[in-house]
C-alpha cells in the first residue's frame, strides 16, 4: 500500500513538473469567432492535461507587451492581416516586427474564410450591370466594410478599377457595427465575410467573390478597362496563431487540439474552413501566403 501511495505521489509530482501552462492571448472582444475557436482548443488541451491561461487584451500593442514579459508558451490568435511580416504596414493592428523584443513567428494558421461583395437585402443593385445603371442615374453606391489593411486595399482597388461607378467606401469597426448598419440600409453593398451568409439568407445577392473559381464572378474580373483584370489579387485570409517561444511538447499538443472534434464543431459554428498544420498547411506555407499577398497589395498600391 505504501509503495502504491509512493508511486501515485511520484506520478502526480512528475505530471505537475511536466505540465506546461499555455497562454492564449486574444486581441478581439470576448464572444467573437476567435474566442469561440480558442475556447474549443483550450477545452481539448485541458482534456490532454494541459493548463490553459486565456488573456484578453484591448489592443495588439498590449498583447505584445505581455508577450515580451511572458515569452514561454504564449500564443496570440489574430487575423492574417493584423500582423505584418513583409513591408506593408498601413493599418495592421499589431506594431511592426522591429518593435518586438523577441521575434514572433507563425505557429499555424487555424481557419480561413472567403470574402465577397454582397448587395444589402432590398437594394436593387444586385449585379455589376445594375450597379453601373444606378450610378449613371446619379446614385452613389455605398460599400460597407470592416476596417483593416487588406479590406481597405481591396475595396479601394475595386473602386479604382471601376471609375464609372460612383462608389463611396464606408469603414466600420467590425461585424458588430456592420450588422445594424446594413439593417438600417446605411450602405448598399457589403464587402467582407462575417455577414455574407446572413445577408444572402435575408435576400442579399453575392455579386462577386474575392476568390477565383468559386462559381461566382471574381471581383478582379469586374474592371474597366478589361485589360487590367489580371492585376487584381485574390483575397486569401484567415486566422493564425503566432508565438515567440513555444515548447515542442506544447506544439504537438496544440496540433492535436486543432484536429479535435471540439475545434471542428467550433469552425462549423462560425462557418469557417479548417486549415493549418493539422491539415497539411505548414507555418512556412502560411507565412508565404501572407507575404505574397502583402507584396501584391504593396505593388498595386504603388
Amino acid at each position, binding site marked *: 500500500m505504501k509503495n502504491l501511495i509512493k508511486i501515485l505521489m511520484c506520478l502526480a509530482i512528475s505530471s505537475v513538473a511536466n505540465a506546461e501552462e499555455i497562454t492564449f492571448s486574444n486581441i478581439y472582444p470576448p464572444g467573437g469567432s476567435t474566442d469561440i475557436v480558442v475556447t474549443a482548443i483550450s477545452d481539448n488541451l485541458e482534456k490532454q492535461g494541459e493548463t490553459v491561461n486565456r488573456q484578453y487584451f484591448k*489592443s495588439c*500593442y*498590449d498583447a505584445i507587451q*505581455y508577450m515580451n514579459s511572458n515569452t514561454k508558451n504564449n500564443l496570440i490568435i489574430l487575423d492574417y492581416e493584423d500582423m505584418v511580416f513583409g513591408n506593408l504596414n498601413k493599418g495592421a493592428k499589431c506594431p511592426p516586427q522591429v518593435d518586438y523584443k523577441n521575434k514572433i513567428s507563425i505557429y499555424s494558421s487555424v481557419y480561413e474564410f472567403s470574402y465577397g461583395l454582397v448587395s444589402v437585402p432590398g437594394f436593387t443593385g444586385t449585379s455589376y450591370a445594375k450597379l453601373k445603371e444606378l450610378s449613371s442615374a446619379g446614385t452613389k453606391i455605398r460599400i460597407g466594410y470592416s476596417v483593416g489593411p487588406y479590406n481597405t486595399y481591396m475595396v479601394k482597388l475595386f473602386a479604382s478599377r471601376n471609375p464609372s461607378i460612383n462608389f*463611396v467606401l*464606408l469603414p466600420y*469597426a467590425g461585424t*458588430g457595427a456592420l450588422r445594424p448598419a446594413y439593417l438600417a440600409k446605411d450602405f448598399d453593398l457589403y464587402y467582407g465575410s462575417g455577414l455574407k451568409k446572413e445577408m444572402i439568407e435575408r435576400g442579399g445577392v453575392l455579386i462577386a467573390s474575392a476568390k477565383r473559381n468559386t462559381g461566382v464572378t471574381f471581383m478582379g474580373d469586374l474592371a474597366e478597362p478589361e485589360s487590367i483584370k489580371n492585376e487584381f489579387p485574390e483575397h486569401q485570409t484567415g486566422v493564425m496563431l503566432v508565438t515567440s517561444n513555444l515548447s515542442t511538447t506544447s506544439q504537438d499538443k496544440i496540433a492535436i487540439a486543432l484536429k479535435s472534434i471540439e475545434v471542428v464543431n467550433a469552425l462549423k459554428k462560425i462557418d469557417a474552413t479548417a486549415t493549418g498544420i493539422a491539415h497539411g498547411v505548414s507555418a512556412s506555407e502560411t507565412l508565404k501566403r501572407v507575404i505574397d499577398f502583402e507584396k501584391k497589395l504593396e505593388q498595386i498600391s504603388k
Partner: protein
Amino acid sequence: MELFLVLVLAIFVGILAGLLPGIGAGMVIISAYPILQKCDINTIFFFYIVLITTMQYYGSISSIIFGVMGEPTSQPAVDNGHELFRRGLGDKTLATTATSSFIASLFGVLVFCVCAKYSTFLIMFLSAIFKVSILTSVLLLLVATNKNKLFGIVLLLLGLVFGSAGSEIVPWINQVFPKYSVFDGGIPFSALLTGFIVIPTLLSYSLESKPIPVFNSSSLDISFKSKIKNLLDFSYFTSTLRGSIVGCVAGIIPGVSYTISSNLAEMIEKFLNKKSNTNEALTKNILSAEAANNAGSIVVLIPLLLFAIPIVPSEALIMSLVQANGFNYLTGLSFISKHFVIITFLLVFVNLINWFISGYCYKFIIDLYKFLGKYGYTLTLIGSTIIVLITGYNDNQFLYTTYVLLISTICGSLIKDTGTKMIFVFSFFVASDLVPDFYRLYLTYF
C-alpha cells in the same frame, strides 16, 4: 439563483446609492465597471434595470427627512417633502411618496411592454442619421442646460476626442494618439471616470465639515395600521397619473429623460395648484414629481434595450459593457423577446419590494443613512480606487491606469460641478459610436 443574487445585490447597491446624495447611477456603474466587465449581457442588464429602478425610491427619503438634495431630481422632494416633514407630516409623506412612485413605475412598465411588443417596425431608429441626430441633440441639450456653455463645449469636444482614442475608423485620431502605443486600446475609462468624477465627489463629501443633520427617528414610530393606511392612500391619484404621463413623455426624450422630468411635473402641478402652499398642494407637487421620476426611469430603458441607443450617461456606460459582449440591435431584439417576461416580472417585483421598503421600513433606511453618513463616502472612495488599480494590474496596464487615474483626479478636482463633468462623460462614452457615424455621413454626403 444567479438572477436572485443579482436582484439582491442590485437592490442593496441601489438603496445605498439612492440614499447617499450625489451618487447617481452613472457613478455606481463606473465604480462597478471592472466587476461588470466580467459579467454576461443578462447579468449586466438585470443589474442595471434593478439598480436604476431601486435608486428612484430612496433619494426622496433623505430629501424629505434631511432636506438633502443629492441630484437635480431631488429638488421637488426637498422643496415640498421636507416642508411637509417640518409640518409634522413626515410619516404620511414618506408612505404616499412610495405609493405614488410605485403606481408610476407600473405605468412606465406598461408603456415599456407596449413598445417592446411593437418594436420591429422601429428598425429605422438604427440608421446613422437617427443615431447622430439623437446623440448630438443629447449632447447639445446637456451643453445648453449647463451654466457655463463655452466650457461645456470644450468638455464635449474633449470627451469626443478622448473617447475616440484607439479608433481605426477616423484617420485624424492617429494624429492625436500615436498608433502602436498604449492608446491603441483606448483610454481606460474606469480609471479616467473614477478619477474624474468618483474620487473628487466622494472626497469632497468625506471632508465636508457640515455634519449630517441630526434627526430623532423615534418620532416616526407609528403603528402598523397607520403605516398601512398611509401606504394605501390614493387620495391624490390624479397628480400621480399626471406625473406618470409627464415622466413617460420626458423620459424618452434624449437629454431631458428622468433627470428633468420630476422638475417638469412639479412645475405643471404648481401651475395647476396656482402656486398654493397648503399641505394638499405640497403633497400633490411631490407626488407628481416623484411619479414622473419613477415612470421616466422605466421608459428611459426603451431606447437602450430596443434600439441599443443610450440616452443618459449611465446607459452609455452600460452600452459599452454589453457591446463588448456582442450586444447590438439584433441581439437586443432577441434579448427582449427572450427575456420579455422576466424583465416585466423583474420590473414589477422590484418595484413592489421597493414600495414596501421605502414606504413601510423607512425607519431602518434612516438608521442606515445615519451610519453611512459617517463612513459610506470614505469606504466607497477607498474601494473604488483599489478596484481600478487591481483592474489595471490584471489588464497588464498598471502604470498606464495609475497615470490616467492620477491625471483625471487632478482634472476632476478642478471642476466642481458634476453636471458639467457629465458632459464630458456622456461625450466620452458615445464617441466610439458618434464620431465614426459622423465621419461616414461626411463621406457619403460631402
